[in-house]
């Protein structure tokens, strides 16, 4: 059997996706389905003094209009940052209170989507408005749960001030990053159907288990009464993880109206009814000695949070893992403003913090007079700087060396502004990427038949990354089958427990459970064939039989193919549940995951620190007259343990880098300050890179072996590519022009000399 891991395998669902035959959650249309639409708040803070629904109710096709006064049996769940499964701790339509612009205030059910939306337009609301601030004020910030321990929000090691005082060069730089929204192509949607006390919800989700457990809990139903179905997800990036008000409103409206209801959230509403990347401020104070070794490292991150939740996505826990330094201080702060609750957006702890860190490192390298790559080399370490445990593997400088060679880093002009091409100023920049290897418990049911087919079932998700394909690959490789012979079923809440698709965990954790299932099948088959009178493995101690990609091997060189051995099993098939329980997973963490939560271990365990690393290099051009910033070349090299599928891995990393370019040059949710409202809630004006912006993006995937992270040796890669891109581009802009830009995104307006 050909090796199916670490090869390029085309997605098993590629043809269905590009021909439009893959069914997404909103494609399911239960009989008698009605349509939902939301009317949302025009003000940010205040209260509803009255709602007139008469015009909406009179609109032809409208069946019902619900408000906080009239929606019966509407349930809510606890917010994620308060330890629950919800996207927010504040639930709209429980009362008259309005706490953010775009908050749902009424829910219209109609016979057509057009009638529902028209009905929502016709809902007339009278407000009592209070003052609101959409932006945080970093001067008015606080530390959550402050404590001087490594897991807390403030950490100190050594003596920061002494490190700064003793430094040959220092930098003190403050960076800012804006609100950003995920904007998946597939809109948020939910379809609910009640049959008595049994509920089915079709909804694109990163965590069908969270949804099922949370909804069942809210309604006091056994989990077996709730089905959650999410066959494919058209992009999520963190926005489809929690239980949102639009889902619970749809479930309640369906119950109230006595018919299935489907809601497809409009694009403008997608900016207010779920989560986003909060705006942040990053302050770095770094010091280095004359040889370029860091003597002081301080990072203070201040992130926006709403009035009613503490959105802690601790970026300082990642930056402090990066470079060797005897004197380290990190602090995690929050500052409140009037928005809905933010959350996770691709590399939620890393994107904005590494923009700051890697820009500051570039500035310090320049001050010390070192090449930026050599400056990183001088500070590389195989031991986690604050946890004092070794990295399970770390190929940072291998990544730099690989990317530098392909990119032609050695041709970089030494002086600022020394490279030009016609009317373009040219600059080269580099930055480090890293992403933690998060570990979650997972199960997977695996069944292999003597006829040569296998089935894999688990409550994992394909959020567009190729999970169906890589799960099939793992089983195919272990069982000695072609990938096409493995049928993978995912995306339903009643399947065996698998992790939330967040934190780049699915391939590593769920994949390891599939791997374990295959090993268990081999053991069961070995027991049967070893007890038989005849056959290659007859009489062998079954505990000494190993599985070598489809072949059972005895201790003395005996062997038999697994498929052939399966013929000896009376049932002609074996079905098992594979499990993955990393030693770092405590009983509490395992319990949390099985209860529908996020019981993650790592990246730092008592024994090891687990991270994937990479390096990115950008060539940037700035036009002399238009001041346009363009990126003709973006190269990255990454090492992340085993590559399960070189094609989908490449796509993940490349997609991350392209998104990183968007963070650098395009993406920002603009705001109206006086009225505390997001402004560009559409994808014409919320800029993301178009094809014309994405020229040469090259991804190099290095070999790396890591036996500690999991049996497959896999580190998550879904978020790695975006980390560092913005800094690489910003550093290249500095190299081209001498301008150090400290606020994302970098725009023409930043480049024009005043």
């Amino acid at each position, binding site marked *: 059997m050909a090796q199916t891991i670490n090869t390029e395998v085309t997605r098993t669902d590629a043809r269905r996706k590009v021909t439009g035959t893959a069914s997404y959650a909103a494609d399911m249309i239960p009989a008698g389905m009605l349509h939902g639409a939301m009317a949302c708040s025009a003000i940010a803070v205040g209260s509803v003094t009255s709602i007139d629904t008469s015009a909406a109710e009179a609109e032809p096709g409208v069946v019902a209009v619900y408000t906080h006064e009239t929606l019966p049996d509407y349930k809510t769940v606890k917010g994620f940052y308060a330890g629950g499964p919800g996207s927010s701790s504040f639930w709209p339509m429980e009362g008259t209170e309005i706490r953010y612009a775009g908050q749902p205030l009424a829910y219209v059910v109609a016979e057509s989507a057009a009638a529902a939306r028209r009905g929502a337009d016709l809902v007339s609301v009278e407000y009592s408005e209070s003052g609101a601030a959409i932006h945080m004020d970093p001067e008015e910030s606080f530390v959550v749960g402050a404590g001087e321990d490594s897991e807390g929000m403030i950490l100190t090691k050594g003596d920061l001030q002494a490190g700064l005082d003793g430094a040959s060069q220092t930098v003190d730089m403050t960076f800012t990053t804006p609100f950003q929204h995920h904007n998946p192509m597939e809109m948020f949607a939910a379809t609910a159907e009640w049959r008595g006390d049994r509920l089915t919800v079709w909804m694109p989700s990163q965590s069908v288990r969270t949804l099922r457990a949370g909804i069942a809990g809210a309604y006091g139903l056994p989990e077996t009464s709730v089905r959650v179905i999410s066959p494919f997800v058209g992009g999520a990036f963190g926005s489809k993880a929690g239980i949102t008000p639009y889902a619970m409103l749809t479930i309640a409206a369906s119950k109230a109206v006595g018919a299935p209801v489907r809601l497809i959230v409009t694009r403008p509403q997608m900016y207010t009814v779920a989560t986003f990347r909060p705006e942040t401020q990053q302050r770095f104070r770094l010091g280095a000695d004359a040889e370029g070794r860091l003597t002081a490292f301080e990072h203070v991150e201040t992130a926006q949070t709403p009035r009613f939740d503490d959105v802690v996505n601790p970026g300082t826990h990642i930056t402090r893992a990066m470079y060797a330094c005897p004197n380290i201080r990190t602090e995690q702060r929050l500052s409140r403003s009037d928005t809905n609750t933010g959350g996770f957006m691709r590399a939620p702890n890393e994107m904005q913090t590494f923009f700051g860190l890697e820009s500051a490192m570039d500035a310090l390298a320049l001050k010390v007079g070192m090449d930026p790559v050599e400056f990183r080399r001088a500070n590389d370490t195989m031991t986690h700087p604050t946890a004092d445990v070794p990295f399970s593997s770390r190929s940072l400088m291998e990544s730099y060396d690989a990317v530098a060679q392909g990119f032609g880093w050695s041709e970089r002009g030494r002086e600022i502004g020394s490279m030009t091409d016609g009317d373009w100023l040219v600059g080269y920049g580099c930055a480090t990427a890293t992403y933690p290897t998060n570990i979650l418990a997972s199960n997977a049911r695996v069944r292999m038949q003597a006829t040569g087919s296998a089935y894999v079932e688990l409550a994992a998700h394909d959020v567009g990354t190729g999970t169906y394909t890589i799960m099939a690959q793992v089983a195919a490789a272990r069982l000695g089958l072609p990938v096409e012979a493995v049928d993978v079923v995912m995306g339903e809440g009643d399947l065996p427990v698998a992790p939330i698709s967040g934190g780049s965990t699915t391939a590593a954790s769920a994949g390891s459970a599939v791997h374990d299932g295959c090993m268990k099948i081999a053991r069961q088959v070995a027991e049967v064939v070893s007890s038989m009178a005849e056959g290659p493995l007859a009489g062998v101690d079954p505990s000494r039989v190993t599985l070598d990609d489809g072949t059972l091997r005895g201790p003395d060189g005996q062997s038999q193919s697994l498929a052939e051995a399966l013929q000896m099993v009376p049932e002609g098939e074996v079905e098992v549940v594979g499990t993955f329980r990393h030693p770092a997973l405590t009983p509490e963490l395992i319990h949390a995951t099985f209860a529908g939560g996020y019981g993650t271990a790592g990246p730092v365990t008592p024994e090891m620190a687990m991270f994937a690393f990479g390096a990115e290099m950008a060539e940037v051009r700035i036009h002399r*007259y238009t001041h346009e910033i363009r990126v003709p070349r973006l190269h990255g090299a990454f090492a992340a343990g085993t590559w399960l599928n070189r094609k989908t891995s490449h796509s993940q990393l490349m997609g991350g880098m392209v998104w990183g370019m968007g963070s650098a040059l395009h993406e920002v949710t*603009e*705001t*109206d*300050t006086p009225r505390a409202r997001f402004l560009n809630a559409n994808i014409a004006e919320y800029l993301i890179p178009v094809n014309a912006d994405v020229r040469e993006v090259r991804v190099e995937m290095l070999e790396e072996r890591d036996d500690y992270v999991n049996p497959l040796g896999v580190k998550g890669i879904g978020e790695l590519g975006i980390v560092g891109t913005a800094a690489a581009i910003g550093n290249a802009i500095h190299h081209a022009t001498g301008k150090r830009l400290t606020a994302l995104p970098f725009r023409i307006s930043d480049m024009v000399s005043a």
Partner: protein
Amino acid sequence: MKNFTYSRPDAVGAATEAAAADGATIIAGGTTMVDLMKIGVLEPDALVDISGLSDLEGFEVGSDRMRFGALAKMSTVADDQAVIDAFPALSESLWKAASPQLRNVATLGGNILQRTRCPYFRDTAFAQCNKRAPGSGCAALDGGHTNLHAIFGGSSSCVAMYPGDFAQALVAFDAEVSTRGPGGTRTIPFAELHVAPGDDPSVETVLEPGEIVTGITLPVIPAMANSTYLKARDRESYAFASASAAVGLEMDGDTVRDVRIGLGGVAATPHRARAAEESLRGQALTEETAREAGRIAFEDAEPLDGSAYKIALGADVVAGALLQAKSRMGGE
């Protein structure tokens, strides 16, 4: 979206009559209209679809005039070799607008009448917008986000920017539009088609109810052949101009005989930089005089906090466009 009636007349006269009714609006390619109807900014009672008036689709590039039917598609005109040869700035101004999908359906007549991208106009949750709801105020001027707003031609009622590209080539090269309305046909200088916001920014053009733009005409002048459209934008395609310039040059040896400069991304209506043009006539075109022309073009700008960068940017774009047009002459 509000319900509406829909008709598709097959003659200009019938279309004019239908469109003159109260609450009626003309739709052609629909790329602006449908968008604004979906978000509740426009709520017509009746749509009069003129896309069936195939007589208005043609265009011709003659030796002394070029004429474009109002229903010619942006992409068709942009790709036409005769247009590219005779008037590159016109082709480029169409090419650099919108996306391929939009250019394939959007018409020239609709393009010149496109509505502003001011976020306060486009989001009905903002109570203040004099353009959308006359007399309600201006959220942009009331402390709003003004990076996208006009630095020329705004008023105390409205600072919304005219977003188009094609119009800058038309205004700088003396285009005229022909129309047909209930009162018959007329010809309007393009520079007089749009009206400054003044006290009532809801009125954007001099067109009467039911009056349909039927065509666009330009006199062929030597500066067209050496023309260019330079557009500064934050991404390489499908973005509105931070600043742009449609520029054409006619040289007499080293001396500028005629020059045309239209400015995009900076003004409330299509904008011609006449003083900058004047500064160059009879002068040599050098980096220095080009930059001076750029400076003059923005002398009278009245920026808001957010749009102040457009002054320096616009000046550089004018200079860059002039030098680009000059460098093209070498290849003739």
